[in-house]
């Protein structure tokens, strides 16, 4: 065991150095910032478009004095209730002069962009518009007309805000948000980083150094070393991204306010980190095994898509199980190795019990080792042959991933 770890360290050190000293590594570090930049740019552009786009307006076609009262009341209440609570209002007609004008005529005028038209009186207002628009505007119009009819009858007090971290209402349902947040974060990190392991042995196979490695150290060390190197690189990336992200959030004061998980934030974050490592090791060991049997980069690219899909299915399963706490499906998700890290993150957010995390982590580690050994066994069985890897002697045919015979 000591020799396996020693040799794995030699491989990990070589791979880690080769990665971080390569020019491509800077792009790896910058990678996650591209979507953020695109998101900011798109958000800014969208905001500008939204601002510039014509906002819906409530058209007022009552008697001018009533309409003015409504507008004044809107301004007054908006101070307390927020500007966004009420749709903008605009006087589009005067009932005293425009008498029996059909409200539809006002709505047809494109330049006014009216969602509804208000006619009648303050005591008996008539809201004209599509059902959806009327449903949306009715309540606020009724509020405004009531206050406009009896100004000063109701005074809104200005409640002072006093924020607390937690309340009795901060229950399992709210914590589900935290659970989903943790799951999504760990899933995306795993999907982004573990997939890279797929092509990890292709370099050694294409430059033939694999035979030197296989003759010098146990293949378990080669696989383990590669896994550790990629994990090291992933953790370095996460460190950089969280540091930059943390600084960014501090500057913008945009730290999202998630409900406190059942196990508390420090343990939850530690568990998320641990489950990321576990998910990474399991998927990494699986991908390394699959990738090791691919003879070419093309084969690796071919299997990338189904592998990503399988990961998505796994994630969706774990997410679905989150809503079924205590039910067999959730228990299965917690036991099934590939979904276990995600399901257990859900549990950490929803339930305060800690011992089952210890059991899950040990189980996941055991499964990762099992996958690693299986990968090694398949590699030795199917790849390490005389001549070209995976080539069947005699008929000149080749075996895809060393298993499926393909044309000569």
């Amino acid at each position: 065991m000591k020799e396996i770890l020693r040799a794995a360290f030699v491989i990990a050190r070589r791979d880690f150095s080769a990665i971080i000293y390569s020019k491509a590594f800077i792009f790896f570090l910058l990678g996650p910032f591209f979507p953020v930049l695109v998101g900011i740019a798109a958000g800014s552009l969208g905001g500008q478009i939204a601002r510039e786009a014509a906002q819906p307006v409530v058209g007022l076609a009552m008697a001018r004095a009533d309409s003015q009262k409504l507008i004044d009341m809107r301004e007054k209440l908006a101070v307390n209730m927020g500007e966004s609570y009420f749709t903008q209002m605009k006087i589009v007609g005067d009932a005293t002069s425009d008498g029996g004008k059909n409200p539809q005529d006002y709505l047809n005028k494109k330049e006014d962009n009216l969602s509804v038209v208000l006619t009648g009186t303050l005591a008996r207002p008539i809201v004209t518009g599509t059902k959806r628009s009327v449903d949306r505007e009715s309540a606020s119009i009724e509020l405004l007309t009531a206050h406009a009819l009896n100004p000063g009858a109701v005074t809104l007090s200005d409640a002072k805000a006093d924020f607390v971290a937690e309340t009795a209402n901060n229950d399992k349902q709210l914590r589900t948000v935290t659970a989903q947040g943790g799951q999504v974060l760990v899933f995306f990190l795993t999907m982004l980083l573990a997939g890279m392991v797929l092509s990890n042995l292709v370099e050694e196979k294409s430059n033939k150094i694999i035979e030197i490695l296989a003759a010098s150290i146990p293949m378990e060390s080669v696989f383990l070393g590669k896994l550790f190197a990629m994990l090291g690189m992933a953790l370095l990336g996460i460190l950089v991204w969280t540091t930059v992200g943390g600084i960014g959030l501090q500057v913008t004061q945009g730290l999202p306010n998630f409900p406190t998980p059942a196990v508390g934030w420090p343990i939850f974050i530690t568990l998320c980190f641990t489950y990321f490592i576990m998910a990474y090791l399991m998927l990494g060991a699986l991908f390394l095994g699959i990738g090791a049997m691919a003879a070419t980069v093309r084969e690796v690219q071919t299997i990338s898509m189904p592998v990503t899909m399988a990961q998505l299915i796994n994630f969706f399963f774990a997410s679905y199980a989150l809503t079924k706490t205590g039910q067999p499906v959730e228990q299965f998700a917690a036991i099934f190795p590939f979904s276990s890290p995600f399901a257990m993150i859900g549990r950490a957010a929803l339930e305060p019990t800690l011992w089952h995390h210890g059991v899950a982590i040990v189980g996941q580690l055991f499964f990762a080792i099992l996958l690693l050994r299986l990968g090694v066994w398949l590699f030795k069985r199917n790849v390490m042959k005389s001549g070209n890897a995976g080539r069947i002697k005699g008929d000149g045919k080749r075996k895809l991933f060393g298993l499926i015979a393909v044309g000569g």
Partner: protein
Amino acid sequence: MYAIEAQGIVKQFDGFRAVDGVDLKVPVGSIYGILGPNGAGKTTMLRTLLGIIDPDAGVRTLLGSDRPITQSRNVGYLPEERGLYQSMRAVDTIAFMGALRGLSLKEGKEKGRALLEEAGLGYAADRQIRQLSKGMAQTVQLMGTIVHDPKLIVLDEPFSGLDALNQAKLEKMIRAQAARGVTVIFSTHVIAHAERLCERIAIIAKGKISFDGLVSEARDRLRPQVHLETETLDGIWRKALPADTRAEGHWWHFTLPETGVEPLLTALVEGKAGIKSLSIERPGLHDAFVAIAGESVAAEMDEPIAGETL
């Protein structure tokens, strides 16, 4: 005492027997050649002996251990398909290969520089492998094979791809290692290399060993050839010539009879053959190889592959 012992080794791929019941004994401190044409099973046999792949049947021990990987620190291996990390510096490559075999990186670098200096490549120590010529890269790999001072060096087709000068350097290195008591085993399809270097050889064809022993023993399997030139063409002396004699004018070519050269000479002199010249030629390894492995197998040997000179 044997560095490698193998008994009944079988390795098959998809029903094809690449190695078929091989028995082998490589004495400690010897230079041992494995001769055979391409596809004979040399590489598979070496991989099996080194533990890179496991045999389907049979037993093998490497430096006394039946788990070859446990002897990794005492073994140096140069595979047939050369491979190095292209972006690694030459000295780091040697140190890395040493580290795989248990050497510390610091020591590996120091010894790597010394080995490169010795090979006249000190100036290239800090260059990346991709910046080196093919021959230089092969030398770097060879340095990586011996940097940890192994007790056993296994070289799979070490001469292929080398020019005459580098082949000579490699032969010198092999002799130097053997002089230090290191066991060297190498495979080749070029008989001349084995003849110049080896004390013992194994001849392999179609996965089977057809000879394993001293080079002299292989040669002794053939009787020496006699080339005789006489003044007369006929006489009583003709009865002394064996049945396989081939005549070319006044020249007679035949295998030295079991009875030896003295009775033959006596018969020729007493029969007044008029000996003008007589030479006895000991058969070379090539002739022995033909006799042991067969004409068809021998025809596949000694064909230079791309970039190789004999």
